[in-house]
């Protein structure tokens, strides 16, 4: 147990853990909110704003005897410090005495506020922070009614400075607390903001090109205690008190950040409810109080113009016609009846658990078990289900004595919040080992980096035992292995997950919190796909032996897989349930059914840490769209599979009864919350920023086999043969966080940051092929249309390898590692 110390706050005695910050301790244990501007519970104190001044003293002890000195009343005597002290730079210690409500303290607070307001503009009516502004609140609470400063001395500064494309700085409003600078430096590790000049001329600047170049910039607007930093997305969108908060889960990556959708009616949107902004919602075990910019600004797809709004049926002429749900479902049912059991389904990882269950039931009713998970790039979910990170894992607790191994993944691009939290774990002293064939951002934070040959991740992992890093991993108190699939085939990624699991089993790092395997699976619900029986292996089987009827749900086959058109041609009928009207729906679907996005209905996702998390309805449906579970359930009804389900909660009840992993899970259980440290989101916005308190539920983590005490056998981890190049180059698809996927394309704001389609080519290969940095090249791959991209020759790719980021153009990049020829293209 941690040591506790006894402190006295306003004459009340409290026992608090030793080493705790005084502001945190007073808030958590004494419910005493010491006002702060610069202090933030997630960052190191700096004591710059002087708002947290308190009377401080220590209980006097006799130097000779160590006895507490008593005064004439028999009370212990306090040796008060001559001046007020900053609470935020004080760590609690035994015998510490503070007073936070005396006249002296109140005067000090009033003076600090008055001083901060000398040059603060009276902008509150037009300021986006107005209504949830720490400075506004603390001025009302502690500030003077009138200022003694001369109005003519007010500074007049630029009110509209873009720090990059996403964040605007109002120089007048800034109170120079350095929270944003420190956040970028301490928490993120992207040191792109800085103070410029000194004294009254001090300003925040960005020193990166492009400006504010980080994936986490939006968080600075949350922790900014004034309206100095505002997002371009929400700028003047609404006043905070007009917004309705709806708890939700970010649909973009396996981290499963808890978010809050701020909605309001909108005249331009037909007077209907609309998402105005996305804010983080505190879940200390998942995303703490941070979200990445993709999550924050990537909500626009939910009402993109490309959304499919009506059920469509393709007539003989080959054209799609809008039909009623009844007619469209009848057409789908007819095709399914004719196909018998020659049916298969491919489900995208944006589908909720309820959708997946309905799809599985539909296929089971037809006698088919061919359930494919999309995209079929990462295996290893089944390994995670056995030796994944233990129940109760919190990456925020990893530190000294622990170790983290990241292999074959570019975490910055694939799961930004994991990257942020693991960077902090490394800062706290965890041993971070990064292994990849190419340099990635994670290398910057690693204690050790190992670069292996492209495609030889498994070999590198097996060889780890003989390296000097092994001791650090084997003897670590906790060990987390984060395994991706970059540069690997599906079999290769399965072998990698197996090899990683074997290390965990060997070093006994399974079945306990803060240890185990994390797979960087694509999409928000890849683990849900696994638990409900959808596998990437089945997808490969479907691609090789196409069925008569294929049901595709929220999977962008044509944009993900360059060979999709080739193998889909063999499918007789495609029934597409999709968010978007372009792509597969428009080109190939015989029946297209519009479904609702994550923002429009209730449901649940399972994140990469196997946490089942619930999201709620935020905005109305687009057109006639239905939740996918409902559309599938009604289709089942047409096929005589029993009455359709009426609510997502009812579907979850059925899942809980039939799928062992979901035993005990219900919407009610998922909605349970408990008090989290630090206590942000209350009325004291100055403490933690504007991240929301979690009211929607913390979720339930599914136990692994190891958690349940089962013995897990070692996995097969035979190394994959490296692809035979025969003089060609190895094409390795990679992931970029900002890309042109249909779920991100409508966020026009961020699109200035999406790179033009490119490929990283090694300088030696480039020289041989006569390619220079910036040339347009053509990449030819079997069975797929040629890719025309710009060549980057800047040390990003190992020899013999071409790194091709996926989803940067309308031409699909290869789904998995392959070989191809690169040639210089004209023009």
């Amino acid at each position: 147990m941690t040591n506790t110390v006894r402190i006295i706050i306003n004459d009340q005695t409290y026992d608090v853990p030793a080493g705790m910050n005084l502001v945190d301790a007073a808030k958590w244990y004494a419910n005493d909110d010491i006002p702060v501007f610069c202090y933030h519970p997630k960052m190191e104190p700096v004591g710059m704003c002087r708002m947290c001044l308190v009377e401080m003293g220590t209980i006097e002890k006799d130097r000779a005897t160590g006895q507490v000195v008593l005064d004439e009343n028999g009370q212990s005597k306090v040796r008060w410090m001559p001046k007020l002290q900053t609470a935020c730079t004080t760590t609690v210690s035994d015998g510490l005495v503070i007073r936070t409500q005396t006249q002296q303290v109140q005067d000090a607070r009033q003076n600090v506020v008055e001083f901060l307001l000398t040059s603060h503009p009276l902008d509150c009516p037009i300021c986006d922070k107005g209504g949830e502004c720490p400075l506004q609140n603390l001025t009302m609470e502690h500030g003077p009614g009138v200022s003694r400063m001369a109005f003519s001395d007010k500074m007049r500064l630029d009110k509209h400075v873009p720090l990059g494309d996403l964040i605007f700085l109002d120089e007048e409003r800034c109170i120079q607390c350095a929270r944003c600078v420190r956040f970028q430096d301490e928490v993120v590790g992207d040191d792109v903001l800085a103070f410029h000049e000194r004294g009254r001329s001090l300003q925040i600047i960005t020193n990166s090109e492009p400006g504010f170049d980080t994936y986490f910039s939006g968080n600075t607007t949350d922790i900014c205690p004034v309206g100095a930093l505002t997002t371009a997305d929400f700028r003047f969108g609404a006043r905070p008190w007009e917004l309705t908060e709806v708890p939700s889960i970010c649909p973009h990556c396996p981290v499963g950040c808890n978010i809050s959708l701020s909605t309001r009616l909108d005249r331009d949107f037909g007077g209907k409810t609309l998402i105005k902004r996305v804010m983080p919602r505190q879940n200390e075990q998942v995303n703490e109080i941070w979200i990445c910019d993709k999550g924050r600004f990537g909500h626009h797809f939910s009402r993109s113009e490309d959304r499919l709004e009506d059920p469509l049926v393709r007539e003989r002429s080959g054209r799609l016609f809008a039909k009623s749900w009844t007619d469209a479902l009848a057409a789908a049912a007819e095709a399914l009846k004719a196909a018998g059991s020659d049916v298969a389904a491919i489900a995208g990882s944006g589908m909720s658990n309820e959708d997946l269950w309905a799809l599985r039931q539909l296929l089971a009713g037809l006698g088919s078990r061919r359930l494919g998970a999309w995209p079929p790039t990462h295996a290893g979910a089944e390994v995670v289900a056995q030796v994944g990170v233990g129940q109760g894992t919190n990456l925020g607790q990893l530190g000294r004595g622990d170790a983290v191994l990241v292999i074959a993944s570019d975490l910055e691009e694939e799961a930004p919040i994991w990257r942020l939290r693991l960077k902090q774990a490394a800062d706290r002293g965890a041993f971070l080992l990064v292994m990849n064939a190419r340099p990635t951002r994670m290398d910057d934070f690693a204690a050790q980096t190992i670069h292996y040959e492209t495609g030889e991740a498994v070999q590198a992992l097996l060889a780890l035992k003989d390296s000097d890093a092994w001791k650090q991993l084997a003897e670590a108190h906790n060990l987390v292995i984060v395994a991706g699939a970059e540069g690997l085939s599906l079999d290769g990624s399965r072998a990698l997950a197996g090899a990683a699991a074997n290390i965990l089993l060997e070093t006994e790092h399974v079945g306990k919190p803060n240890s185990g395997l994390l797979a960087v699976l694509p999409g928000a619900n890849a683990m849900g796909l696994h638990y409900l029986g959808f596998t990437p292996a089945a997808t490969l089987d479907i691609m090789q032996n196409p069925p008569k009827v294929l049901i595709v749900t929220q999977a962008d086959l044509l944009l993900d897989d360059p060979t999709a058109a080739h193998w889909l041609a063999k499918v007789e009928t495609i029934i597409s349930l999709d968010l978007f009207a372009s792509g597969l729906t428009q080109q190939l679907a015989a029946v297209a059914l519009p479904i609702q996005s994550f923002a429009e209905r209730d449901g649940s996702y399972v994140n990469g840490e196997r946490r089942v998390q619930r999201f709620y309805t935020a905005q109305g449906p687009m057109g006639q769209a239905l939740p996918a579970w409902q559309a599938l359930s009604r289709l089942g009804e047409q096929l005589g599979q029993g009455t359709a389900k009426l609510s997502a909660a009812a579907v979850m009840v059925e899942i809980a009864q039939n799928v062992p992993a979901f035993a005990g899970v219900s919407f009610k259980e998922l909605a349970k919350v408990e008090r989290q440290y630090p206590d942000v989101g209350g009325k004291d916005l100055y403490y933690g920023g504007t991240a929301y308190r979690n009211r929607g539920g913390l979720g339930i983590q599914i136990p692994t086999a190891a958690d349940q005490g089962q013995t897990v056998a070692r996995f097969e981890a035979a190394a994959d043969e490296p692809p035979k190049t025969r003089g060609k180059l190895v094409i390795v698809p990679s992931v970029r966080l900002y890309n042109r996927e249909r779920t991100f394309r409508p966020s026009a704001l961020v699109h200035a940051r999406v790179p033009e389609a490119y490929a990283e080519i090694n300088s030696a290969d480039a020289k041989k092929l006569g390619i220079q940095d910036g040339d347009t090249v053509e990449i030819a791959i079997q069975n797929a249309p040629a890719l025309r991209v710009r060549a980057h020759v800047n040390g990003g790719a190992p020899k013999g390898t071409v790194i091709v980021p996926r989803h940067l153009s309308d031409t699909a990049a290869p789904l998995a590692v392959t070989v191809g020829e690169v040639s210089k293209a004209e023009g």
Partner: protein
Amino acid sequence: MNVIRGFATTFKHLLEEPVTYQYPEQIRPFAERYKGRHELKRYDNGLEKCIGCSLCAAACPADAIWVEAAENTDEARYSPGERYAKTYEINMLRCIFCGYCEDACPTEAIVLGHEHRLSFTNRKDAIFTKDMLIDPVPEGGQATPQKVEPGVFTRAIPDMEDPK
């Protein structure tokens, strides 16, 4: 005698001017502070005073006001400062003419005027949009949006001098 006195009163009133106003041909002057239909005011140069801050909507006890804001640029400027009201609507069926909106307004943009002839034949007509509420462009002023010199209209709220 009493009868005569009674008749005298009657005849006297017959000869007096009638007190009835022949509304609507004839309209009584209003008290200066009469609270009639809202008017959105403009500055002399034609820029709108309203900055879309939505404080009127927050103050409104009847939830009758709907404001949506957007950002000004120097190419298309509606009001001084960065923010203007893109949508401004008052539902006159809900409005109780309390004048709290006027009190809440930081720029004195919304004023309850003397217009009182508010009748509608359906609910939709009761919603007064910004076009219906805003004052005409004053003489010598320009209509909004205006194209203006950069850096001139940077303040949303007129400067207030030191409290005297």
